[in-house]
């Protein structure tokens, strides 16, 4: 109030407070006396909300279109959904037609069209606000449908391809530098020694796996996207790296704010 009811000053006060800046490190002594952490002795780790998760993935991949304003957009939905709604909006049109402008698929989630009868599938299982209600307190659930969405969606996988491309562009060909850059982009830290050995072990094995696929009739792999120079790209190595990026982007550390 003293500051003329300025919300900006209030926010500054909150985020600079000692409470807000507490580490989220688990502390056995705190758990013993305050298991629900009501007194906020440690920072309460939170799962990213539906839109935050989508936007963070888009942002990390370097794909996010930060255009402000304008009408709501229709990002890509699974083709089975489009097929099911051809005649359903009462005017002979589809309830959801993927936007023609590819940039519309990468807009911030706040611009995603909200249709009560047809929630946007990519964020639907992450407890988004219920548009049927004037006021909504969000739940935080953890379900298999969320895991399926993040791990299997072609759209999310495409962002992992773009992120892989971004990492290679920024870090060059050196494997160590690539892993460091990936972790810096996603988690603002370098991987630990244990993590690095797990990641390197994976790359080696996955490369062999991808290579073995090359002997089947139809060989196609998902390689990093957005690269300027693809001449020197080893497709086996590149595909293995995309898989690595996708797994790291799916990890708990990305889905939660610690």
């Amino acid at each position, binding site marked *: 109030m003293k500051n003329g009811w300025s919300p900006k000053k209030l926010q500054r006060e909150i985020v600079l407070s000692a409470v807000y800046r507490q580490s989220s490190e*688990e502390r056995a002594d705190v758990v013993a006396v305050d298991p629900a952490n009501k007194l906020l002795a440690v920072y309460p780790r939170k799962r990213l909300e539906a839109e935050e998760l989508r936007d963070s993935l888009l942002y990390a991949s370097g794909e996010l279109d930060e255009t402000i304003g304008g009408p709501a957009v229709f990002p890509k939905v699974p083709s089975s959904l489009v097929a*099911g709604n051809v005649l359903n909006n009462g005017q002979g049109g589809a309830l959801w037609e993927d936007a023609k402008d590819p940039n519309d698929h990468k807009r911030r989630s706040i611009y995603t069209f909200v249709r009560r009868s047809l929630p946007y599938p990519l964020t639907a299982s992450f407890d988004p606000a219920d548009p*049927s209600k004037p006021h909504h307190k969000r739940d935080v659930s953890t379900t298999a449908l*969320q895991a399926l969405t993040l*791990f299997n969606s072609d759209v999310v996988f495409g962002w992992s391809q773009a992120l892989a491309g971004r990492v290679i562009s920024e870090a060059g060909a050196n494997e160590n530098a690539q892993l460091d850059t990936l972790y810096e982009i996603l988690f603002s830290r370098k991987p*630990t020694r244990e993590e690095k050995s*797990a990641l390197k072990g994976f790359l080696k094995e996955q490369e062999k796996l991808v290579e073995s696929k090359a002997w089947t009739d139809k060989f*196609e792999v998902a390689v990093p996207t957005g690269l300027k120079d693809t001449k020197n790209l080893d497709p086996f190595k590149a595909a293995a790296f995309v898989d690595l990026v996708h797994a790291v982007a799916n990890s708990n550390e990305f889905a939660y704010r610690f």
Partner: protein
Amino acid sequence: MDNKSRRDFLKNSSLGVGGVALAGAIPGFNISAASAAELIDPLAPKDPHFPAKIKSVIWLHQNGAPSTLDLYDYKPELVKQAGKGVPDSFLKGIKTSTQGGVNELFVSNYRSWKQYGESGAWFSNLLPNLAQHADKLTFIKSSVTIGATHDISILKLNTGDLNPGRPSLGAWISYALGSANPDLPPYVVLYNGASEPRAGSVNWNSGFLPAVYQGTAFRPGDSPIYYLDRPELRSALQQRSSLDLLNRLNKLNAENRPLDTELKARLRSYDLADRMQVAAPEAVDLSKETDATKKLYGIDDAITGSYGTSLLRARRLVERGVRFIQVVSGAPDGETEITSWDAHDDLDKNHGLMAKMVDKPIAGLLEDLKSRGLLESTLVVWTSEFSRTPWGESGTGRDHNPWGYTQWMAGGGLKAGFTYGGTDELGVQVADKDTAVDTYDLHATVLHLLGLNHLKTTFINNGRSERPTVVFGKVVKDILA
């Protein structure tokens, strides 16, 4: 299918999927081993209030509102009076403000009636196959609801309210009983035809209950759930090893936070997703069903095929422990003109097609459930948002009637071959208002058969204790065995 592993895991290590109960609580949460599973896994199976008669419900929503006056509710007086006006005495107390107005009483020239079974239940010539199962059915011929437009009354049929925001019946059941099969959702929605069900997901959403209890729509086709298939360019082996890496990274991350159950729950959710990827397509895969079974459901026929497929899938889901299966009637494959029971004109053409689409599959479902010994532990409910008037609209159609119509149930815990209540001589309204069965009463009765007291099935929302039947509802005791 691996049904046991997850439960065992929960018991042994008190981890599980879901963090609903823990929302807001952070690292660590001192819980006793006994309640651990329930606290952490919102879908852990829970005991009913009293022993249940049934394990699963198949909710057959006849979308668009069939005229039960043309299916089950035989009115000789209506046949006699056809072509005449409706006497005022029959319209007392009701507001007939729907668009069609009150026209002359109408009877189709093609309608004929016969009694079937020992119970002598009447069926019209539109349902020759279902009629053979007369003695399995429990008719409620005094159903009432609030009639408005379809979308609003469908919402009431499923959630008990005319406005969006309340949980559907299936969501309440998932919340109260949890999941009997950890690899599949406890509440599944099936439909046939080219478009999604009218008014969409508000009819199977969880309202103010946590989202984990909402229905999962299984879409027609081989891959019933979104994102069930891995990205196109990845091989199964690639996917497997990627999951292993993810697992390893998550475990490393959780090492510093040994008391954080939600992180472990998320780790677990990827294992479950991995199993669901196998369990869900398997549950709807009809290739292992015999030709005789497929024929029983009419899957070999163009008109009955898609609805029959939904119902055979429903039976497979019942076998796999799914608690609530909401089947919304759509249209035969390739049919674009008649897509629901909404016969405002040319009732003969509309109901001729729609009745044909559902008659054989539903009869097949009842026979199949019976022969597999599942009918005693399953409840099949024929239900609709409202029905249709005895007077005609546009000459050959019928308008909406929420004042008195027929719904039926079949299965465990009920008096089979029994009729409860009735409509007046012309089929306008419920004859004895004391016998009227509203949506809330139907919901209370379904919950009762599942071993749940609708008054004790509660959830605190905005400081108010809410229940499935809002502030209404009575169990229809007269139909219970």
